[in-house]
């Protein structure tokens, strides 16, 4: 243990030199970067799925056309709707939280009942 060399420093991630800003508000630069990075991650997932489909097809377990022709039954459709709903709530979480805070701070109006952010 005593002879172990110290761990090397991690490779730099940020390039030396000033980072230009393209928008008046620097947070828009951050948001743009996050969006483009997410796009690449989506492409990665899509590619992994494509690999899976091709391997499954190559093994003769199904043909790729079967995927395109697939019709979910009612139970599957309900589960999928749940997934879509969860994902959209996650992606829009900040906007939804803003609504929740607004509701929490404002006194209930005549027609809003208990003030839930629904």
């Amino acid at each position, binding site marked *: 243990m005593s002879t172990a060399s110290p761990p*090397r420093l991690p490779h730099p991630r940020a*390039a*030396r030199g000033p980072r230009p800003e393209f*928008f008046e508000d620097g947070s828009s630069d951050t948001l743009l970067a996050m969006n*483009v990075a997410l796009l690449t991650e989506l*492409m990665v997932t899509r*590619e992994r799925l494509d690999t899976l489909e091709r391997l499954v097809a190559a093994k003769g377990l199904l043909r790729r056309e079967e995927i395109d022709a697939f019709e979910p039954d009612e139970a599957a459709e309900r589960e999928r709707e749940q997934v879509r709903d969860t994902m959209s709530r996650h992606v829009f979480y900040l906007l939804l939280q803003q609504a929740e805070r607004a509701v929490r701070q404002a006194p209930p109006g005549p027609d809003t009942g208990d003030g839930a952010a629904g």
Partner: protein
Amino acid sequence: MAEIPRNQAEHPMMARRSHDDAARQKAVRTLRQRLLPRLAAGSREMYYRTVEPALRRRQDGRPVEDFREIRAAMLEHPYVRFQLGTHRVIQELMYETLVDSVEPQLEELAEKARTLPRGLGSLRLDPALQVPRYVTAVDIHCQPGGYAHEAFPGDVSAGAIYDRSINMYQQGAGGMTDYMGRAVVQYLAKAWPGFRPRRILDLGCTIGHSTHAYVRAFPEAEVHGVDVSAPLLRYAHARAEALGIAVHFSQQNAERTDFPAGHFDLVVSHILAHETAAHAWPAILAESRRLLAPGGMTVHVDLPQLDEIDPYRRFIYANETHYNNEPFWTPYRLMDLPQLMESAGFAAAETYRDFTAVMAGEDRQKARAAVEQSRRLGHGAPPGSGLGFALLVGTRGAVGGGRAAEAA
């Protein structure tokens, strides 16, 4: 429209990549090579439809010449800011994905570079060499750590990252990624058909990807490459040996090498000029001249100077300095090249300015028309269309076989 990117050839020195790392790198490549030209085309349309006419009206119909003025007007448009911002983000993501994938293998790659069978070429490092400040002041084109980052003895990280970045960055850089070297080889065959160099030197050779083109084209020649970065050269040497290509690499500053005067028939560089500095580039040209044997030739590959392209493309070019850590990119393109060549010792009759797109054109008239149209439209980044690479060529005396009549 942008062509479908081709993969580069894998070789034993290359950093491995997982299924998802490969997908991530190709995703960035698609964004860089296919999305960015689309976004840039939008800005160009905006310029010629609205911005340019408005600027022209403002100055009583005089043509718009000043790229700084174009830049100020273009930045008024949110679309343009998104386009330029996306361009920068994709450059950063290229390295983010590469560092992520390469970093866990760094020790293994260093060991591989050290132990790979060799014997074709050679590697000569100089631990006392001072890496010039223009290489270390900022990380050029945003590669984290830059060209010379060395985290531990034997480190090859800069080379391993750079190798995979070429294919992600550059349209047409598939296969052996030696497209720039091949462009020069094709140029030589066309413009100087009798020229047979016996000793060749590639200045600022990085990982030797362009250098290899000369070994392939002139198998009887002795080929050398110099660079200031030890991590790049260690990688370059191992890469060349793994590919069975004989190159002699040495760690030297191209401003002044230790080769004897008149040692080489051909001295080349590839997109080196704009990554040097105002004091260094004249020195490198003078060193190129010093190293040439009688009848020898030097060819420096870069992109066109600003006065060789239309005002809109000048604005596009200058963005490299503003947004991509290329401090010398624009200053270099404002330099007087004939003057520099004269100061370096080349007579006017020994100095040539050629463009690969024109030289490669089977039909010279058609090629010229394409260049003219490209000048007018001011679109796209060469190579691929328009001028292609710009070659700064100097000879020492008469070159064997002379210059082809059609090149004149």
